[in-house]
């Protein structure tokens, strides 16, 4: 199937334009605004079909390139293009946003036009982050994303929303500006903001270490890695359902994407030198944060901590390549960790998004996220219980669900690297099962706990559609991840090559 050559621009700007339209229509014509939002997000999703179809999975070249001069004085280009690691994340973005629109359909009473507009703008900007091939363009999208999310949490969030959203903004802003300094430094040395040029540029060791740390500040906060994760539980808990979904499903992935796109290929030697740092922090996140999740009483907080633990797999998988090389003496298996990291990102996007939708369903009915306020929900909401249990299983990494594939690949890869990595990482199979299933037990199973639960109504058609679509995706990716792996293969292979070549 052919895709127009400007398909990426369309994916970026169509949702943003629709957002402006919705904003102009205002709250009074919100009925129309909702349909415009849905149409735009579905149109973006539809654009992904030819995008995936026409994507050439045999090359690591940037595809669907668009390159126009943007700021001549700074040698910055409006350069878009995608490869095997950006395509799945773009599709994930385009897949999640319509669900957010549907889920919010009539739930938002406060300034609905601005709500939908914020998510539409977010979608365009997030796709821009994944599609940008110019570092300055990337940075503009990367930062611009903060504004709508800041507003989403701050306007429609819970009682401590102001604290949470300012913390979110400042944390991520601080990380980002350090990355900006690194990018400017690279530009001053090489005269180009083109990401591909930055990949090729030789850099001395000291500079590499500093640049690596600057990138690390930006991406580790976004992932988020322990110990700079503390903004996430706050932001997640206070954000409205849609905000939590987008945060968990897409925004966290940007940190992982940043590692793959910037840190690893631009500073391979520093990454090799400092891989112990990332691996240690990832293992701490997997094990320690797993225990923290066990102790939570707030459903959203529990899922937020589980997100941090799961994202630990992404960073672990991204940085085990060198240990695999030194243990096994071959680069053949080095890509497996990266494969696992990518699959884990997509899978976590689906599963955590789905879990936040589930919490949103309950919250809409009883207006509390406290685990003790529920119990025996399965009795009054059987259909909901079915989905909730399915996503919980996926979160625990049950084989047959998408959660299993990524974790399995990363654990196998880290086993090749070092037994103890795999040992700690595998703890998640126990911990993840423990906190997730315990959550299910307390909320879903058992006798009807109180009158509130007794009065619950099961899923309406809208909620059913959202959860069913996600369930299908989770199962499909779990049973048959091959298409995703195929799309990524050449890019991952190139990345492994870049990792093995010194830039000193």
């Amino acid at each position, binding site marked *: 199937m052919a895709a127009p050559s400007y398909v990426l621009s369309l994916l970026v700007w169509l949702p943003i334009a629709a957002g402006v339209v919705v904003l102009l229509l205002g709250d009074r014509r919100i009925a129309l605004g909702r349909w415009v939002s849905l149409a735009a997000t579905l149109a973006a999703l539809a654009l992904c079909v030819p995008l995936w179809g026409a994507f050439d999975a045999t090359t690591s070249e940037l595809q669907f390139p668009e390159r126009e001069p943007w700021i001549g004085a700074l040698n910055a280009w409006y350069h878009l293009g995608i490869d095997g690691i950006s395509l799945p994340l773009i599709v994930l973005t385009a897949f999640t946003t319509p669900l957010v629109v549907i889920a919010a359909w009539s739930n938002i009473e406060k300034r609905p036009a601005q709500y939908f507009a914020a998510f539409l703008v977010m979608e365009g900007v997030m796709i821009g982050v994944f599609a940008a091939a110019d570092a300055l363009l990337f940075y503009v999208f990367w*930062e611009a994303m903060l504004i709508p999310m*800041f507003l989403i949490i701050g306007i429609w969030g819970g009682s401590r929303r102001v604290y949470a959203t*300012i913390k979110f903004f400042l944390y991520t802003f*601080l990380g980002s500006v350090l990355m900006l*300094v690194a990018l*400017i430094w690279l530009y001053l040395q090489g005269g180009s903001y083109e990401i591909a040029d930055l990949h090729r540029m030789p850099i001395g060791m000291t500079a590499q270490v500093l640049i690596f740390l600057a990138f690390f500040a930006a991406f580790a906060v976004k992932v988020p890695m322990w110990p700079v994760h503390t903004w996430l539980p706050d932001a997640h808990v206070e954000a409205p359902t849609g905000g939590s979904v987008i945060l968990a499903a897409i925004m966290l992935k940007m940190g992982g994407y940043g590692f793959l796109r910037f840190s690893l290929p631009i500073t391979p030697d520093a990454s090799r030198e400092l891989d112990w740092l990332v691996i240690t922090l990832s293992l701490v996140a997997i094990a320690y944060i797993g225990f923290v999740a066990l102790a939570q009483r707030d459903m959203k907080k529990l899922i937020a901590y589980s997100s941090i633990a799961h994202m630990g797999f992404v960073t672990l998988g991204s940085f085990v390549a060198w240990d695999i090389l030194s243990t096994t003496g071959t680069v053949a298996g080095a890509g497996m960790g990266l494969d696992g990291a990518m699959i884990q990102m997509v899978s976590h996007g689906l599963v955590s998004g789905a879990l936040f939708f589930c919490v949103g369903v309950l919250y809409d009915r009883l207006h509390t996220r406290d685990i003790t306020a529920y119990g025996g929900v399965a009795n009054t909401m059987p259909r909901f219980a079915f989905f909730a249990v399915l996503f919980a299983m996926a979160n625990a990494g049950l084989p047959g669900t998408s959660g299993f594939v990524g974790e399995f690949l990363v654990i196998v890869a880290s086993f090749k690297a070092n037994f103890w990595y795999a040992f700690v990482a595998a703890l998640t199979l126990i911990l993840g099962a423990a906190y997730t299933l315990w959550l299910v037990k307390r909320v879903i199973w058992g006798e009807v706990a109180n009158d509130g639960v007794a009065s619950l109504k099961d899923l309406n058609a809208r909620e059913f559609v959202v959860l069913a679509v996600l369930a299908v995706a989770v199962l499909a990716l779990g049973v048959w991840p091959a298409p995703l792996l195929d799309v990524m293969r050449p890019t991952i292979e190139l990345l492994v090559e870049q990792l093995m070549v010194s830039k000193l």
Partner: protein
Amino acid sequence: MEGTPMVLSIADVMPAAAEIFVAIAACVLLLADALVGARARSTLFVLTIAALAGAAWVSSAVAVPAREVILGGHFIADPMGTVLKLFAYGAAAVTLLYSRDYLVRRDLLKGEYLVLALFAVLGIQVIVSAGSFLTLYLGIEIMSLSLYAMVAFDRDNGVAAESAMKYFVLGAIASGALLYGISILYGVTGSILIDGVASAVASGQAPTIGLLLGIAFIVVGVAFKFGAVPFHMWLPDVYHGAPTPVTLFVGSAPKIASFALAMRVLAEGLGGALDAWQDMLVVLAALSMVLGNVVAIAQTNIKRMLAYSTISHVGFILLGVLAGSAAGYRAAMFYTLTYVIMTTAAFGVVLWLSRKGFEADALDDYKGLNRRHPWFAFIMLLVVFGLAGVPPTVGFWAKLQVISAVLDVGLVWLAGLAVFMSVIGAYYYLRVVKLMYFDEGAAADPVVSPISVRLVLSLNGLAILVLGLFPGFLLRLCEQVLR
């Protein structure tokens, strides 16, 4: 030149036609005010705007393609000057437009106010085109005296009078320091012309210690005019105490003059002694960024908060100047121009929200603005994210360039400080967004304002976004005129 009688032909003074035009216009306005008096205020207002438009036309008509020095070296006509002047006219005109309703409601729209504004513009023009330290000083005094009077214009207002007094006393000290520096410089180089000083410094004829002393005093003077720490004491009080339209006026066009002052004196005149003043500016810039951003957090009055924010932005502008490179000057110019656009919009919103007997200068007055006036809340949103330097607003490109400029000259720690301080600064800007968007305010009467104000304010705000998406044009302009 000495000995021969000076004969001026029209052609000789043509490059200064805009200055002459504004001077005449101001005098005509003064006369007209005396003749028609209170009855025709709106006509006078229109005439003032027309005078600024006329000045813009004259400036464009006599624009020179390359640097030209006339009047015995005392006047420089160059592309940079033309662009700066055009921006100054625009800023002054927009400022007056925003101020009109406020002034009328408080019975402050008098002929004198408009005349003073025009004289201030004249001072700016003279500074921008100054070819010698004397012209420069003349311009500074024309501008400053007009501004002092404008701050004190609301004569029944004690706070305004007090800030005018502070402004005047501290401004006089600054002028004194500057004049003292100029005299030392004249002593050691033997020239009062900027170009003459430049060649004396470049050839190394000037005795070092004297030159250093002269530079120190001149930097003090420049820092005073900019409002850089530790010479910033007047700025918060003047911003806070002056009637809001005057605050807006002081905060916009004169910043262009400050930049021009720094360019003419430091870059052109003392460019050869970069090593001497770079370190001084490093200290000023670092202190300004730190103090401005940190103290702004504690403010509850939006005018005072913007004053401290101005101090921090001055620090950023100085970053570009102190780099001493073409990229640095370009960055400083870009920063100055975009800062003027943003600050004009910021005070524009404050003025737009003010009514009779209500100043809209407490931060709490912005609570729930999004619900009452979503469009202007959005404009203010653009302004604060612009001032915070978050893309896709133009403030980001301004910060990017100054940081790039200091990185390029190897001052990595200063670049680090700058980005760190912009994160601190983001906090108090975000607070404004929080008040407008996250809080629910008390019900208030809808704001009524003329369509012209709403239109210009909207364009002004959108410019922050549009220039943020397409900064190329303005960047190229700055690059070309500084060549």
